[in-house]
């Protein structure tokens, strides 16, 4: 196996590992949970429905 061929295999393995490692950082929801908004003081069912219907 030539060096460039071995590096191509290494790059493929690295990108799979990068996706596995990166997913928990990229994947989460970035918005406040609507349940928490409606349960917190001041939150109303109406505001929840308007935002999430």
């Amino acid at each position, binding site marked *: 196996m030539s060096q460039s061929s071995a*590096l191509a295999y290494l790059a493929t393995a690295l990108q799979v590992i990068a996706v596995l490692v990166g*997913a*928990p950082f990229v994947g*989460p929801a970035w918005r406040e949970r609507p349940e928490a908004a409606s349960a917190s003081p001041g939150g109303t069912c109406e505001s929840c429905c*308007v935002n999430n219907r």
Partner: protein
Amino acid sequence: VIPLGTTIVFALAPAVVAGTTLLIAAISPLISLGSPLDPSADLFGVVGLLFLGTVALALAGLDTGTAFGGMGSSREITIAALVEPTILLAVFALSVPGHSANLAAIVSSTVSNPGRLVSPGSLLAFVALAIVVTAETGRLPVDNPSTHLELTMIHEAMVLEYAGPKLALVEWASGMRLTVLLGLIANLFLPWGIASADPTPLGVLIGLVAIAAKVAVLTSVLATCEVFLAKLRYFRIPELLAGSFLLALLAVTASYFFATP
């Protein structure tokens, strides 16, 4: 905990979603153009693998026999039926200038001719793909990944019966799917930094840093947009996806009209 009455479909679905996503990660030109799996790295293949994962989860939702599972599967397949043709058309628009649907060929064609990035076909395809990727990965404004309200759930309704390691795998696979698609969009439209077909150790290192930086930037943009966006009503989603389909159709038309020899 595995619900009573479920079959092997429910048990295997998380592995199918994770497996198809990892296969997409392996065949996509994220770090280097010279992947050993390059002959299989066809954009139409990527669309097929994505849909395979979606169908596996939808079947798992139906397999539980609960109202929420069926409702989530119904909604997911409705959205998928609108998303998949748009992805295929946008992909077709991107494959026209490079005369190939092979991912590495498209990326290397863009690297050698960066002027194509500002062509109408490329810009329209980018917008169409950005919209359908948010729909395909269940992000706002199409789906709210943090909701468990019965009126709004799509993806979460399908996976409501999962618990423990299987739920973890489903959530991890969802994150992987978003990561891969963001990486793919980044390299299709901003391919700089990617290692060549005959990579050097430094090229691989630069490729790794470049793709991490691009995905981090796209994730920040996504997070910023999600903070300011409300979820669309379910019956408004087809309008958004029909708009993205129209953009993809225009992208194909523009690719032929403004094609450079």
